């Protein structure tokens, strides 16, 4: 006896055409094994179908909303002087969610204040002594980001723009990358993974960095002071880079 194994599930779910269903009916009339199989499939199918689809996870919905809002910011049309922001470090960044910090700086440049303030820059000649590169890493509470209204986001970008303007003014800006608001993973070794909480203060996550030129830690640190992230309980980490 050949058992119609491939037909039992669609038989239970009523997805067989009339002829195929008759064939299964005829087989079931003579086969105890397949009758038992159909009963078991039907019981479990009914149990699963009876349960409604689970509701959407609200934090997930909020994260998606946050992620799709970000391209709005990248729509800012910019005309960035190539010696300030090299195209290879910015324009080639893939995806619309990248480089909010640089967008903020570039948007400011497009707005005109960059060149207005450049003439009054107190130390534009210091770039000649800045042979080393330094990296700023941003930490901030992700919960605040997820539910942030667009107006608040724009205001934060404006404050970032104000804060980062001197770095660009002095010709020190190299690159900056905006990371996604997704937290991350920290590898303790090739096989051990921790959350970011293991390395940074609880509740904070790495959200981006700036790379700029400075002559020493003290030289770089003066740009860190006044970073608006501090107002929200964030942290800034300063490291010298290769």
């Amino acid at each position, binding site marked *: 006896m050949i058992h119609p194994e491939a037909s039992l599930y669609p038989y239970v779910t009523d997805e067989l055409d009339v002829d195929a269903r008759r064939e299964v009916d005829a087989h079931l009339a003579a086969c105890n094994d397949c009758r038992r199989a159909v009963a078991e499939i039907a019981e*479990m199918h009914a149990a699963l179908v009876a349960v409604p689809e689970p509701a959407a996870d609200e934090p997930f*919905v909020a994260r998606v909303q946050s992620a799709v809002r970000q391209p709005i910011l990248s729509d800012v049309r910019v005309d960035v002087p190539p010696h300030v922001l090299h195209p290879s470090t910015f324009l080639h960044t893939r995806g619309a969610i990248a480089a909010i910090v640089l967008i903020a700086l570039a948007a400011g440049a497009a707005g005109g204040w960059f060149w207005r303030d450049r003439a009054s820059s107190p130390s534009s000649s210091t770039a000649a002594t800045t042979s080393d590169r330094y990296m700023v890493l941003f930490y901030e509470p992700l919960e605040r980001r997820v539910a942030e209204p667009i107006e608040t986001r724009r205001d934060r970008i404006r404050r970032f723009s104000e804060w980062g303007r001197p770095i660009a003014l002095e010709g020190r800006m190299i690159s900056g990358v905006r990371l996604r608001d997704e937290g991350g993973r920290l590898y303790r070794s090739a*096989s051990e993974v921790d959350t970011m909480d293991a390395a940074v203060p609880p509740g904070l996550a790495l959200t981006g960095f700036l790379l700029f030129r400075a002559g020493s830690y003290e030289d770089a640190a003066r740009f860190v002071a006044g970073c608006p992230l501090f107002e929200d309980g964030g942290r800034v980490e300063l490291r010298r880079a290769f």
Partner: protein
Amino acid sequence: VTGDAAEIDLIRRAAAGDAPAFEALVRAHAAAVVSIATAELGDPTTGAEVAQDVFVRLHRSLSTFRHEARLRTWLVRVTINACADQRRARRRRDRRLVPMEGIGPRDAGALVDRAESFESLESRRVDRVRVRAAIDELPAALRVLIVLRYDAGLEYREIAHTLSMPQGTVATRMARALRQLRAALSAPDSKGTP
């Protein structure tokens, strides 16, 4: 959710920049997409990340979305493809690292909620933890079929098309998956065994 007039209207409004309309679409399909990605990748964290990327891609594709297929079907296909990309990337990454064993527990994602609802079915008092465990313990090839059918609501022919798998194979595996689930839930140590 089907590709009915209400959903088509939501898609058109979302494509025109209506944020609440897009949120409604996300809300309608989030559980299914997260569940599929989690079942495909065996890791809820990565599953949620991939699911988020799927919805970002949806947002970018709204203006070109053709209403020839249900949105749910489109999302399932994109999710399956994104998970395949993720697995390829993971394999490339793992080749560069010491192989990792047992990265996180396998999880059936939204099916956990389904399991909780089991308890409310008085005629079928199955322990929710055991339901979750039973789904988690299914082989990956069977687990994803359960998710596609009972979370995403695809018919078995749609599942076959989505996975490029013969309909007969899908039907046979689906029957096997349900019988395995039932057997696991009927084990003697299962609380409230029917």
